[in-house]
């Protein structure tokens, strides 16, 4: 793919393969998400987007840029500064037949809304015995890596994944972002959509042509024979880098983008690790009671006989997310992931 391809949402380059037309564009994740939302609004008159600064400003990350101008201030609007209000209001809109796509401005500001998310959004379908579905797609700019102020670098996936009634997904690149958001925002159930904010401006190829299959489950981003690296969000590209480095030493690593953090693709994990016999799971969230524990345990359950070493976790530490200066000490870096891989490869039954 040439870098000269126009890098805006509007400029598409269309190539032809033997069988079917392929429509591939290079764009940033911010652009891919913006385009997905634009299409969702166009396709579903009941879809509405709202949150703090989502309207005129287009969001602090510009994910909703231009949407108010294009779809009107009834469909895309600013709310007062209150996250519980935003999510509680979403419940009522869903009851009235809308598909709310609220935004929480940063991960850390989902906490004030947790009560409405856990006790209301996640349970209303159940409580109402299926008569009041909650097709709410909550966008949460997530994870760290941008040297931001406190509470702007949190990873809440373990919390969300533990809540019955929620589905949770995180894209790792622009292509995934476009397809996963379009998919999530057309589901009849609540989906927490965790956007890796450190990847918003990274460009990548997006193939808009749906490949027919729903983007459920995990996705092998790189095949390998010796060890499976499991990751999501911003950690996927870091794991791909690690795999390239390891390849130089003849270590052939498979990188699995988990994508869905609830439901977790247990079969996909099993298939990969049954082949590689070794696994390391990587995430930014603190270690203890993080989602890595669930992933590791699912792998251990399905691959107990074939595993050559216990699944290793390379994660953030059990400390509050630090200030920018210490961010690189906290987030799993290439070195720490390589050490984790080494521990697994060198494991000897004792």
């Amino acid at each position: 793919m040439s870098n000269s391809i126009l890098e805006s949402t509007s400029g598409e380059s269309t190539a032809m393969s033997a069988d079917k037309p392929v429509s591939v564009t290079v764009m940033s994740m911010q652009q891919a998400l913006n385009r997905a939302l634009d299409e969702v609004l166009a396709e579903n008159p009941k879809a509405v987007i709202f949150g703090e600064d989502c309207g005129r400003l287009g969001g602090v990350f510009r994910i909703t840029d231009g949407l108010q101008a294009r779809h009107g201030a009834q469909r895309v609007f600013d709310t007062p500064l209150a996250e519980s209000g935003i999510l509680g209001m979403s419940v009522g809109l869903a009851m009235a037949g809308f598909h709310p796509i609220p935004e929480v401005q940063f991960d850390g500001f989902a906490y004030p809304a947790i009560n409405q998310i856990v006790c209301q959004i996640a349970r209303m379908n159940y409580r109402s015995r299926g008569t009041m579905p909650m097709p709410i797609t909550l966008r949460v700019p997530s994870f760290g890596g941008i040297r931001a102020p406190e509470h702007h670098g949190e990873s809440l996936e373990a919390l969300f994944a533990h809540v019955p009634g929620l589905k949770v997904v995180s894209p790792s690149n622009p292509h995934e972002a476009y397809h996963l958001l379009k998919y999530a925002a057309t589901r009849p159930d609540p989906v927490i959509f965790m956007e890796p904010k450190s990847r918003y401006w990274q460009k990548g190829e997006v193939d808009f042509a749906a490949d027919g299959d729903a983007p459920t489950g995990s996705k092998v981003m790189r095949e390998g024979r010796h060890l499976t690296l499991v990751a999501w969000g911003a950690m996927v590209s870091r794991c791909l880098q690690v795999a390239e480095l390891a390849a130089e030493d003849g270590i052939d690593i498979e990188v699995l983008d988990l994508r869905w953090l609830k439901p977790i693709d247990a079969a996909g994990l099993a298939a990969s690790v049954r082949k590689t016999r070794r696994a390391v799971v990587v995430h930014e969230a603190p270690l203890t009671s993080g989602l890595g524990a669930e992933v590791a345990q699912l792998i251990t359950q399905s691959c107990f006989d074939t595993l050559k070493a216990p699944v290793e976790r390379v994660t953030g530490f059990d400390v509050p997310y630090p200030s920018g200066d210490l961010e690189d000490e906290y987030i799993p870096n290439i070195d720490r992931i390589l050490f984790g891989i080494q521990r697994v490869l060198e494991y000897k039954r004792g």
Partner: protein
Amino acid sequence: MDTLPLAVPDDDAGPLTSAQLRELYSLMVAVRHLDRSAIAWQRQGIIPGYAPELGQEAAQVGSGYAVDTTRDFVFPTYREMGVARTMGVDMVGYMSTHKATWHGGLYDPVKSRLAPIQAVVAGSVLHAVGWAHGQTLEQKDGVALTYFGDGASSQGDVHEAMNFAAVMKAPVVFFVQNNGWAISVPTERQVAGGSVAARAAGYGMPALQIDGNDVVAVVEATRRAFAHARRGNGPVLIEAMTYRRGPHSTSDDPGRYRSLDEERNDAGEDPLERLRQRLLADGIADEAFFAEAIAAAEAEEEHIRAGIQALGSRPGAEMFDLVFQETTPALQAQAANWREESEHV
């Protein structure tokens, strides 16, 4: 307190007819009887618990009476049995929540226009705002009626809801039943300033503080508020001053925080007796009518009790089936495992 501008004439706005006053009385008797019975059912082991609304019949029946179930939507707490009954909700379905059959109740909230029973204090106030804003977005004329208590008024969500509704001019009626207590905490230790209605001015929202034991006053205030909101003038707050005559719930022991004397003094006049006297004084009803109302209430209670007693547990499979609209492989696996280990199939 009455800061609601005089409503423009409205179809709803005429004075209550004698037939309507009699209907209100019958409803209040039915509610009172069912409420008392539910406490008895709890003692008899028919249901494990219940939250009585003794003393709040006028506030609940009066406000519920103003609802137009063809277009409005109501958001209850855990204590709005009287509202549900007035709206014509299936009462076996409603009471099933107290039998521990299903948390939200078994009635159909969409058809009933009554959201599922809500156990989080102040939990559904914001839902009303969202639903109401949906009416604005679709240029419909429904009004959301949301109930909460004096205790609930302390929750942050209530503030967020009032502010959102007022900023968006959403057609919401916030109906506060100030019954003097939040479990053991009296209003004066709960509501700074002493009145929830007084909060409305701070949002530029009109408010009515009314005698919540006068069913006629409640109907009229609620109708005025509905008319105001329905015409696109934004939200209204009603604070109905009433009294929780019974315990907080069947597991509460009010003797630990208030005396019988205090109860007698603070509760004031009984709302049901008050309407009875009025109907008698105005010659609208006689003893025969009252006897009939009680007989009807008794028959109704028997019917509901029979329904509740006949109600079996819901099949365990519903635990899994009702989580999502689109189930997941993990849930299916857990359901299969549960069937094997618990149902031995």
